[in-house]
């Protein structure tokens, strides 16, 4: 009898322990450290992205989390200062002893600095549309992701667009294309690609660096508008630089319709301050603009409707807000992919990296997420951390981004060999053995 009581007691205790563990697991959250800049010279760019991130995370949690696992986050303000960004990462990379799963530095400089740190911490580093382009080679950079597109791909697609305006890529021969760029690691990223394209298509490539923060560009635009007179000018700007470029171009009489901003020179904060000067300005993007999509309606209803919005309601649907949604969607899809393999648990960074390598955002999946037509399908693989995506060009009419172009596929035949060659050089320099199990 005593033995029976003992056995029943042991079974009951085991049951209690298991159920407590289960509860603990259910309550465990996926932690994401968020680096933001909502003050300082680049705050106008950082603010809508920060708002989009928070809104999306709140929306995910309000709709039951990712397969029942809630998202948790901490933010650290670094003012787009690389040193402070790294310090922020060290401060918030873990919470309650648990390491975060992914970080989005929102700065090419910080991305470069965090590549070795996140590798050591077993965390995913996702530099979406910025950062180190050759990190797209997943065989070398196992934990860094650049999806859905990189700067190198971007300029090939923009070149395709310019070629089309000229009547075909072959007509670029003898023409001039200028690059006005932020004189930093970020701004210099596309130079190599444009040099290759210049040789391939026979156009003259002109470079115009602009020092941080880009307050004074009169001489740059005097050279462009009155001396070299390029057929098109591409801007790789950030913050005040872009609007100053637009205004100075107008001031000197260079046609603004011949200027194409990259996707970080493509927000309402770039065009509105330039006022009437920016009418006709064009800019690139890997997603569309506006809040007509179901996801936006759901966020407005479930987050803002509950009085839980992270900022002004009017910002929902703006360019940089939408970019944050792309970031959020890729993250949650990667978590779902990882949960398929590891179970519906609060996965860790290494498991998330596996999930990232199995993201497959098809058209039907985008429809399910309430983003049908918002962006092109995206498939990330072990070897290709950029995935394959498309780009479109919008035009500013003085109040809104209008006239979306068709989608342009980048020249991956140009960029991929460059990426692999650059990544191989990096691997050699750092003594990294590329993964062989990707192919």
């Amino acid at each position: 009898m005593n033995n029976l009581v003992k056995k029943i007691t042991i079974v009951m205790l085991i049951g209690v322990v298991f159920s407590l563990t289960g509860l603990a697991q259910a309550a465990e959250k996926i932690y994401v450290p968020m680096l933001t800049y909502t003050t300082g010279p680049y705050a106008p760019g950082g603010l809508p992205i920060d708002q989009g991130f928070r809104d999306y995370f709140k929306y995910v949690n309000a709709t039951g989390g990712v397969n029942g696992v809630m998202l948790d986050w901490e933010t650290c303000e670094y003012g787009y200062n690389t040193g402070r960004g790294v310090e922020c990462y060290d401060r918030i990379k873990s919470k309650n002893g648990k390491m975060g799963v992914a970080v989005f530095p929102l700065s090419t400089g910080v991305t470069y600095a965090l590549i070795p740190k996140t590798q050591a911490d077993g965390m995913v580093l996702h530099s979406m549309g910025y950062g180190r382009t050759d990190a797209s080679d997943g065989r070398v950079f196992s934990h860094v992701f650049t999806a859905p597109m990189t700067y190198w791909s971007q300029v090939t697609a923009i070149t395709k667009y310019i070629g089309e305006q000229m009547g075909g890529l072959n007509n670029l021969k003898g023409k001039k294309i200028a690059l006005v760029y932020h004189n930093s690691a970020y701004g210099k990223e596309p130079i190599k690609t444009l040099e290759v394209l210049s040789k391939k298509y026979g156009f003259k490539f002109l470079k115009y660096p602009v020092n941080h923060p880009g307050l004074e560009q009169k001489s740059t635009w005097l050279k462009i508008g009155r001396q070299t007179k390029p057929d098109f000018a591409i801007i790789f700007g950030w913050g005040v630089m872009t609007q100053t470029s637009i205004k100075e171009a107008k001031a000197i009489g260079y046609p603004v319709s011949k200027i194409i901003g990259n996707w970080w020179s493509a927000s309402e904060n770039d065009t509105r301050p330039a006022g009437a000067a920016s009418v006709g300005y064009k800019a690139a993007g890997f997603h569309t603009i506006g809040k007509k999509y179901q996801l936006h309606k759901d966020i407005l209803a479930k987050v803002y409707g509950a009085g839980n919005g992270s900022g002004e309601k009017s910002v929902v649907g703006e360019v940089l807000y939408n970019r944050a949604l792309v970031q959020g969607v890729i993250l949650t899809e990667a978590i779902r992919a990882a949960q398929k393999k590891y179970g519906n648990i609060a996965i860790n960074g290494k498991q998330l990296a596996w999930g990232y390598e199995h993201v497959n955002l098809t058209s039907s999946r985008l429809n399910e997420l309430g983003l049908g037509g918002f962006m092109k399908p995206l498939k990330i693989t072990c070897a290709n951390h950029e995935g394959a995506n498309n780009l479109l060009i919008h035009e500013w009419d003085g109040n809104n981004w209008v006239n979306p172009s068709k989608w342009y596929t980048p020249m991956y035949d140009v960029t991929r060999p460059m990426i692999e060659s650059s990544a191989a050089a990096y691997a050699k320099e750092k003594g990294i053995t590329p993964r062989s199990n990707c192919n």
Partner: protein
Amino acid sequence: MMQAFLFDPFMMMYDSPLFFVEVLVSGLMSGVMYALVALGFVLIFKASGVFNFAQGAMVLFAALTFVGLWELGVNPWLALILSAVTMIGVAFSVERIVLRPLVNQDPIIFFMATIGITYFLDGFGQTIWGSEVRPLDIGIPNEPFMDFAEWSGLYINKFDVFATVVCSVLVALLAGFFTKTKIGRALRAVADDHQAALSVGIPLKTIWTIVWSVAGIVGLAAGILWGSKLGVQFTLALIAFKALPVLILGGFTSIPGAIIGGLIIGSGEKIAEVYWGDAFGGAIEDWFAYVVALIFLLFRPQGLFGEKIIERV
């Protein structure tokens, strides 16, 4: 290499003299805008011997207040007056809270105090008005005089001409204020020696409040002009760095010096960027201005028009 430095630039000038004139004129007009910021520094240094590190922050704060009030529906002229009153309030607070307790302290202590004021105004302004870019359109088109351009081939910008006129009027008023009025002379006496000025009955506190107020109002003018070029945003505070080489060149105590310094720096950096920029890989205008200022420091440490201080020991 030598050709790129010594031959090509001059050939370019010779080949396109009209373009050279355009670069020169654009540079001079940019210089006027730098001088407008430099004026605020000069005013405070001239009257109190304090290098006011917070001048850039005052420009930002004044412009944020002006555009913020305007956005709230206040008539722009009233917003201008209210912003000027706010800057007088800032001056009054600075005098009471920061400067008064530091009378007779070393200049470096005052300088450190102004660094504190900078960070306070930067943060406080953004706390009240936010960090978003605020477009500011004062109705002056930022485009060339096209008729003139077609006639002469020279592209002269309407906004730059307007800024030049505003700056000229401000300089004339300030020069008159310093030389023709009793308060102006008192300001200069305070700058020479706080204690001596006090001993002859000059009210130091009042003088400081006045000079900080005037610098705040000059900052408001600079903030509105720069804000309508760039949008009103945090970056406005950084234009102070464009004024530093102007001050080194023109002298910290001379209003005409700020103007001449601005013109030399503005035109010099533009000519350097356009004609010698390529030889250096571009983007040389920022550091070129400081190189010019450093060369001047070697030969005239007091600047072009600054007062040469000789102390007997």
